[in-house]
């Protein structure tokens, strides 16, 4: 499988300037790519386009040569920077995980998610704990590609390492493709097999 952005341009409104213009990139299944650029280069926009959260103004996003499916569980899942906005504040965390379709005990254990947390509400957990739930939810959906939009930026180094270890292990095991958006060059070099620098490309 291959996730591909083909000559993609995007602007949020007709009166606004282009955020992305004529960008192309491709990720193979089993590949780990880091996307690297300073602020304001459209990293998050590109991540949202690739996961189907936004539709490109021009160009297309292709998965195996076909556009992303509009219905059903999307094989490309996005994990965003702020877990507290990606989780319904009125849901217990068990329901958050069940939204992905199934509860996978091994993933829960790998992330160190304790069963007592499942009965809590999101605001009773910290950001790092919530981010684990977001990553676990994306992994449990059975996605083939993970788009990680600065998922560890606001976490301390220990939690960062913990989350990335599990993600990389799972990616290895299931032969997933990963696109990691990051500001951190060291992290990018550490986790990826290839680095794309938006300032140069």
């Amino acid at each position: 499988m291959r996730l591909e952005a083909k000559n993609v341009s995007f602007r949020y409104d007709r009166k606004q300037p282009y955020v992305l213009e004529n960008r192309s990139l491709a990720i193979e299944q089993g590949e780990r790519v880091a996307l690297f650029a300073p602020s304001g280069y459209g990293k998050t926009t590109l991540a949202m386009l690739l996961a189907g959260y936004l539709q490109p103004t021009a160009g297309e996003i292709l998965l195996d040569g076909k556009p992303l499916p509009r219905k059903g569980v999307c094989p490309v899942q996005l994990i965003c920077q702020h877990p507290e906005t990606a989780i319904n504040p009125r849901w217990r965390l068990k329901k958050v995980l069940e939204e992905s379709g199934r509860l996978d005990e091994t993933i829960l254990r790998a992330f160190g998610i304790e069963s007592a947390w499942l009965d809590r509400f999101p605001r009773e957990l910290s950001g790092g704990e919530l981010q684990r739930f977001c990553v676990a939810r994306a992994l449990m959906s059975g996605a083939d590609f993970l788009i990680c939009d600065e998922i560890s930026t606001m976490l301390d180094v220990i939690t960062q390492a913990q989350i990335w270890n599990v993600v990389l292990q799972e990616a290895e095991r299931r032969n997933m493709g990963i696109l990691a958006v990051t500001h951190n060059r060291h992290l990018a070099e550490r986790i990826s097999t290839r680095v794309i620098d938006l300032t140069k490309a």
Partner: protein
Amino acid sequence: MKKLNRRTKVLLLTAVMALVLIAVYAFGLLIPEEAYASSFLQAKQPPSFAHPFGTDSLGRDLLMRTLKGLSVSMTVGLVASVISAVIAVLVGIAAATGSKYVDAFLNWLIDLVMGVPHTILVILISFAMGRGLKGLLIGIAATHWCSLARLIRGEVLQLRNQQYVAVSRRLGKSSGWILCNHLLPHLVPQFFVGLVLMFPHAILHEASVSFLGYGLPPEQPAIGIILSESMRYLSAGMWWTAVFPGLLLVAIVLLVDRLGDHLRRILDPYSAQE
């Protein structure tokens, strides 16, 4: 006694208010018709121990009649505001999730209904629907949903753009599933607070339209009817026929209004730290 914190106090107060309202309502329902039967031997009596609110020109006990009338008013208020609130939720969601044209049309409709004075609209609809309890209910229910609908539209518009709704969609959830699981639970507090705050309006409109003679039939004990009958005897010095029923109506309306306010404070997360 241990000092209660503010939240506990508000909770207790709300519970007491709700109990008083329920008690008035239940008591009104249980009053038999004989309790306010006419008796010409006792007509036009000022307040006394036997008749705390006095009696009217037909010798009916005004306390019993007022309480019965209040329970009728509360039934009208409750049913009308429930219907109204449900309409508001449906219209609000339709406006927020429908196409641009649906939204524009519903907004225009809200402006239209809000632009016409309520009392006139209630009278017109109630009259067209054959007056009586049914006409009044339809009239009040059809005019009170506007501001709540607008509130809910805004709320849904905001919720729809939340990240977790987008995530849910990419996890393959249908719009209906998202509506039931993500959106509706968020609207529950708005719904209940809106409902309770609509209640006093509905009661007042019921009373005023009945007072003007377009609502409930004159033989029915209702506050509006009692007040309109009292008009004829006020100049004869029978002040009690208007003062006590009127005051009780105001008291009930204020009570419900305060109850709604307290409910809002309890349910609204922004006041949680107060």
